[in-house]
């Protein structure tokens, strides 16, 4: 927590210097936060043009540097700029698409209102009528403890791939919440989501990523079993 606070106040100091025209401060901000903007652009589905979108966002930052009021953290403000720039770019590319369909508030399009997406596949639960209805059909297996650096790296790669395959609203929310550590309130502001939608998207995203890690281990365990038999 202390580090995050210190980082946020460093950001504010850099931002003040940027306003005064300090090039080194601009460079420092870009070095600090460009990877976040690229990750967010990728999460929006701009895989091929993510770097470009981040650059456009920085140019927009220069254009409206005086409009930053310090009501949010610099990081949150930067994410908001990226989203606006990406949205404007998407509008330009899709001029034939009716304007209204590009709105951010169509929760059907962002998948939060779809209720048929359980956190865990229903086949994992006892579905027969009785005292154990809805309880695990088989015990949830233990995961290996990520004690070695190699195993942690392996698991992180699985997580990264799982996130990359999420639909983009879920991906954006998990990237901002769990990778960038933004607050729920900030994420709602940046992505123009209601708190409820934000939570549903985050829950679906986390549940799928957990399932991907579980799947990875169940393969590894059954392969090891095959090897040893």
């Amino acid at each position: 927590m202390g580090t995050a606070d210190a980082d946020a106040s460093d950001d504010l100091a850099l931002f003040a210097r940027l306003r005064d025209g300090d090039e080194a401060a601009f460079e420092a901000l870009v070095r600090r936060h460009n990877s976040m903007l690229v990750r967010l652009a990728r999460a929006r589905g701009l895989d091929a043009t993510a770097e470009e979108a981040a650059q456009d966002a920085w140019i927009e930052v220069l254009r409206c540097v005086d409009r930053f009021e310090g009501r949010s953290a610099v990081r949150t403000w930067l994410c908001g700029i990226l989203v606006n720039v990406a949205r404007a770019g998407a509008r330009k590319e899709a001029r034939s698409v009716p304007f209204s369909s590009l709105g951010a508030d169509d929760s059907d399009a962002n998948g939060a209102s779809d209720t048929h997406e359980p956190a865990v596949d229903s086949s994992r639960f006892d579905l027969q009528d009785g005292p154990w209805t809805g309880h695990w059909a088989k015990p949830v297996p233990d995961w290996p403890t990520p004690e070695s650096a190699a195993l942690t790296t392996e698991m992180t790669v699985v997580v990264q791939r799982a996130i990359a395959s999420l639909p983009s609203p879920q991906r954006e929310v998990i990237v901002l919440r769990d990778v960038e550590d933004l607050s729920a309130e900030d994420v709602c502001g940046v992505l123009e989501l209601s708190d409820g939608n934000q939570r549903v998207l985050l829950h679906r995203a986390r549940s799928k990523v957990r399932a991907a890690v579980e799947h990875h281990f169940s393969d590894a365990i059954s392969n090891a079993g095959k090897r040893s038999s």
Partner: protein
Amino acid sequence: MSTQGLDLQCRELVELVTDYLTGVMPASERARFEQHLLQCGSCRRYLGQMRTTIGLTGRLRDDAVPPPPVAAKLLDAFRRRKQGGAK
């Protein structure tokens, strides 16, 4: 009934994990959730795995590689803006 803890199904519990972890759960529901956990090793493991997953996701921020030099395009934009004076 709630003293049994298992009036909450495992299938329901897994849908409440994010609410539980983000602290937005009302106290009574939280008690029911925790009561279930006391009785159910599978759900305890499940919750632990969600925590591990969140921790692993957070690691993606620690870029192992140092950031590349700032693109010349951006520095040009900066210098142009400075020459033109702040609008």
